[in-house]
């Protein structure tokens, strides 16, 4: 089957620094390409279902353009693929975590046009033409952290850190919609992000600090 391979040198989201690949980028590219191959076989399963080798008759086209973190990415997406799968295993954007894969934890939270949603419970084909933002898309052009990320660091928000990208994305969406939330507003907004470590108060401190400092 045809899969889009990930060539970091050609990837507009990841311009080569100083003409060549840094060690970190090289490792990332190997991980990403490896993941593409394994995800391809995982997604296709061992059966030959509709759409595995060709576009399903009358159904969606597999090769689609996605708008991810402000860049247009061409990617081959099977009809039954979730956005979390595409982001992590086709595009190498592993900042988005998969905790439960059924809408029950919030680790996979990303933004669609500034609205937080669970990428594990959304088909990739459903977000064509929409602006997708993942945690990788938050840093400024000079590489500095987003105010929410910085505030989470300053407030020692994460404990193990697994839920952190999701907590960040939900908090960013909250502050875009409501730059001056009360602590209760923040609690309600973050009610769909589970933290196994129970670091909720630290995250709330982080959101309130980010709101103050913005």
């Amino acid at each position: 089957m045809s899969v889009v391979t990930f060539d970091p040198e050609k990837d507009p989201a990841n311009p080569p620094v100083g003409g060549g690949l840094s060690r970190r980028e090289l490792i990332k590219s190997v991980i990403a390409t490896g993941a593409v191959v394994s995800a391809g076989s995982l997604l296709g399963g061992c059966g030959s279902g509709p759409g595995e080798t060709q576009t399903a008759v009358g159904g969606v086209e597999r090769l689609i353009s996605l708008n991810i973190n402000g860049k247009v990415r061409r990617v081959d997406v099977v009809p039954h693929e979730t956005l979390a799968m595409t982001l992590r295993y086709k595009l190498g954007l592993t900042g988005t975590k998969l905790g439960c894969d059924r809408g029950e934890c919030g680790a996979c939270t990303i933004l669609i046009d500034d609205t937080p949603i669970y990428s594990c419970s959304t088909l990739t084909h459903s977000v064509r033409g929409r602006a997708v933002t993942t945690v990788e898309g938050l840093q400024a052009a000079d590489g500095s952290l987003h105010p929410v990320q910085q505030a989470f660091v300053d407030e020692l928000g994460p404990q193990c850190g697994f839920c952190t990208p999701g907590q960040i994305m939900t908090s960013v969406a909250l502050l875009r919609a409501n730059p001056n939330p009360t602590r209760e507003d923040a609690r309600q907004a973050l009610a769909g992000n589970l933290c196994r470590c129970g670091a909720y108060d630290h995250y709330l401190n982080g959101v309130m600090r980010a709101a103050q400092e913005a």
Partner: protein
Amino acid sequence: MATKDMMRPFQLFQPESLDGALALADKHGGDGWIMSGGNDSLSWFKDRVKSPVAVIDLGGVTDLVGIRETANGIEIGAQTTLTEIAESDVIQSKFSVLSDAARHVATPQIRNVSSIGGNLCQDTRCWYYRDGLDCYRAGGTKCYADTPEGMNREHCLFNADRCVAVTPSDTAPAIVALDGQMTIAGPNGTRTVPAEEFFIGPAIDIERMTVLEPGEILTTITIPNTFSGATFYFEKVADRNSWDFALVNVAAAIIEDGSTISDARVVCGGVECVPKRLTVVEEVVKGSSRDEETAALAGQSAVRGATPLNYNHFKIPLMENLVKRAIRDA
């Protein structure tokens, strides 16, 4: 047994009009699956308990999105999200029981993608059924929940008929309390049924929760002005305030004439396969004043005839108290 694995492949269709969606739904019939926000749909597919050949994504059918005020009430497109309903000015000012109910569903992220149509049409959460066991509702010959060892803490108190599953929706009791009318489009045209008749129990059809036939799409929910600006109450009790489905919820719409109740509709979820309209309670409170005594009587009459299972006796006092509070504190 269900496997927690990738979904089985399916064809995905993304029509951009209701007509397009209806044609696809008609063409694929029982092999097709209407998908709205996908929260319920995708978990069935991931568990491989349901494996449709063709999935018809309503996401592009923009004619089904939005809330419209008319002379007689409001019309809500089935594809309107729960967030839009919770935040709608017109719903908050005229029918706040519905915006309140929508706000109590699941989590913000789920409300951002779930539609009111999906929330009303979603299947029951009985875990035996959802895990793919061959129970009555799945076309088999036994109920795993209604056995001495069955885990039935979440199951029903009323009108069991082989199946003891309950309605999971938080918005459904509010829609029934408001006397919502459901417009359904299908291969043979359009029909409208009262919300109260839209939901069906196992005695009518054990394999479906609504009157929808394969190929039919719920298009609009119309709320008449009957209870516009009335006194409302919504309360949900669940194990956690996020994510969890209601153990019991209550939605009430009350019209007062001076100090007496002139009209009321009171509905509970989580106690029967359908949102349970409590007509006895309504009769008890009509003509009375809204006080402690009337509320206590309402609570007592609400649970009359309840037949608990092994692990859900607690739902009886819970339901009694919720109905009592609905009348007293609305």
